[in-house]
């Protein structure tokens, strides 16, 4: 096999070229930027080299708040979304006749314009005539000021985000479900396996690669949450910035405050956090990866 050992790179070549030009190069530039004081992207000027940006970052209470919010967001959204998506994917997959219909319906949110989604969810969360408060009122719960009060901004965002990420996960899981050999289900039926156990012991382990994928990608995506905030709170970070997330912070620093260095430092911090967590995640889940 030795003589072919570099053949793999031939296959990777197109991707690698694109990646280097359009991801790695800007990434490296961003990392460098983060160490330059008062860097200006316009003329590449800077006044110092060092950790100034990082100091600025960590002394900014807004950044701390955005870190905390993002952490809460990730912890709530990723597992919930995966569990729900898995459930729905399996339910859809088990329908014989209406499968195609459900599959299409559950996919629709993914194609629907972000603006529409934002508007509808704002309506659903509306304190006076929103659907959610209406449902809650059936259970005798007082109307909640989802979008008006800081303490409900994150919960609202999280609910919205779980819903929004489900279409993607369902799509992936449905694709994954098709690769599970029918025989396993046959064997499970013969073994009189209760439905739930079929789910936990056959479906979930067989889908493990997709679940790992979804959780890794979901986590990366959740850490980078920005659009959801933007569309739910109409371009703001929630009442009194209560739903400020890291990328929102970075974006703001970059495009509105022109603090390129600080924004870059924020990105690097974010990058490192995600890197560390995905590594842990892959270690943990990779341990029980079985080959065919």
């Amino acid at each position, binding site marked *: 096999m030795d003589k072919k050992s570099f053949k793999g790179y031939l296959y990777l070549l197109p991707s690698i070229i694109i990646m280097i030009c359009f991801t790695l190069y800007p990434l490296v530039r961003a990392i460098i930027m983060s160490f330059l004081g008062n860097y200006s992207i316009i003329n590449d000027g800077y006044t110092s080299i060092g950790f100034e940006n990082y100091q600025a970052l960590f002394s900014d209470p807004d950044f701390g708040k955005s870190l905390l919010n993002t952490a809460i967001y990730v912890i709530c959204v990723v597992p919930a979304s995966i569990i729900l998506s898995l459930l729905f994917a399996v339910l859809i997959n088990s329908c014989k006749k209406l499968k195609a219909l459900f599959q299409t319906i559950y996919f629709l949110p993914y194609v629907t314009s972000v603006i529409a989604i934002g508007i509808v969810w704002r309506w659903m969360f509306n304190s006076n005539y929103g659907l959610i408060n209406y449902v809650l009122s059936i259970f005798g719960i007082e109307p909640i000021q989802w979008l008006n009060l800081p303490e409900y901004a994150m919960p609202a965002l999280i609910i919205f985000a779980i819903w929004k990420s489900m279409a993607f996960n369902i799509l992936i899981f449905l694709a994954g479900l098709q690769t599970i050999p029918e025989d396993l289900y046959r064997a499970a039926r013969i073994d009189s396996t209760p439905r739930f156990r079929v789910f936990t012991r056959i479906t979930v382990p067989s889908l493990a690669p997709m679940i790992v994928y979804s959780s890794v990608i979901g986590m990366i995506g959740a850490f980078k949450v920005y659009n959801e905030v933007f569309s739910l709170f109409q371009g703001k970070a929630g*009442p009194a910035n209560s739903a400020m997330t890291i990328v929102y912070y970075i974006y703001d620093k970059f495009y509105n405050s022109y603090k390129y260095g600080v924004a870059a430092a924020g990105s690097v911090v974010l990058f490192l956090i995600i890197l560390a967590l995905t590594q842990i995640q892959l270690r943990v889940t990779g341990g029980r990866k079985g080959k065919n």
Partner: protein
Amino acid sequence: GQSSTQTPETTSDAQVTEATEVASDAATAADEAAATKSIEPTEITFWHYMTGNLEETLTALTDEFNSTNEYGITVTLVNQGYASDLQTKLQASAAADALPDLTQAYNNWLTPYLDKIVHLDDFVANDFDNWDDIVEAYRGECSEFGFVHAVPFNKSTYVLFYNKTLFDELGIEAPKTWADVEADAKIVKDAKGIAFIGYDDSTGAIEATLKQNGENFVDETGALFDTDGGREAFEYLSNLYSNGYARLVGEDGYFSNVISNQNIASYVGSSAGVSYITAEGWELGVAPLPGNKVNAANMAGTNIVMFSQDTNKQLAAWEYLKFLTSTESTSKWAVSTGYLPVRQSAYETAEYKAYMEENICAAACYEQSKDFFYSPTFDASNDIRNSVSPAFEQLVLDKADAQTWFDTILSTINAQY
């Protein structure tokens, strides 16, 4: 951030030096223009974010210029999406050295690349029809970086929109002073249980309130309102909110939606937003902002900035700018878009007068045009805007007292330098 306070001066010094060099180039071009006035046919790109009716009007004006100018200048309009998209694209283009010849821009977009802007002082001095005719506040805004960096274009102001039907019913008039506001608000609150007033732009509200009390908000040295007048202003705001006379827009997004549904009696918003108010079953009234010691009203909207490096193009672009800011063009623009004319003389044209007759909003704007002020732009100004608004919201939600208002806003601002 505290740590970054030391260094910016060095950069801006450097920028100023460079900018001066560019300025001398421009001066030559302008001198030439005055002397010879020969311009080669050329194409000028103009980036904007105007859409719909605004874009149509702009296109019509530009077509007119393209077909009538004697030099064979063609101006190409390029729509660059939303204002924020244009901002991003300008920033990227500045970095890539690919700026357009002309663009719409807010002053606060420009700080990172001030040195790329063509200085227009000489053009204004040598080849402009009565610069003083331009509304004073606009002129000030267009030269706040120490040189004339832009000419005003789509300008608007903050006015008070109110539910005239409701006012009439309760027998109140549009408030002229803070005291009126408080009095009217009590009546409305007692009668209808709804808030009286709201502000689309909360930082702007603080700034205007201070101005109305004869105080200033901030400049590049820091907050300026640590005075008795300043405290009074916050007392006023604090009272409005804690008494429920004023409210936040919250989930409705824009007060135009709130007033459309008659959930508020009046609000302060941009005159450009009048078309988004749906007055069904009630009548809309527009009034100048109420004042206290003095009257003062925020203005809004962009100016046009020039980046062309080529002398000929600069001359050509200047021809276009002169055209756009002419009395005739600006009144045409104003009439069909609802923006404000940039020239005092435009208010006097028959065309615009007729327009004001039937357009209450324009009339209100005109009425307060002498009271316009603009927000100064400096390194921390964006951060101040961005951090004051959430702080404002938090204060409202906390029903904070005047002292807390004052302290919080002050410390929030000081943290940005």
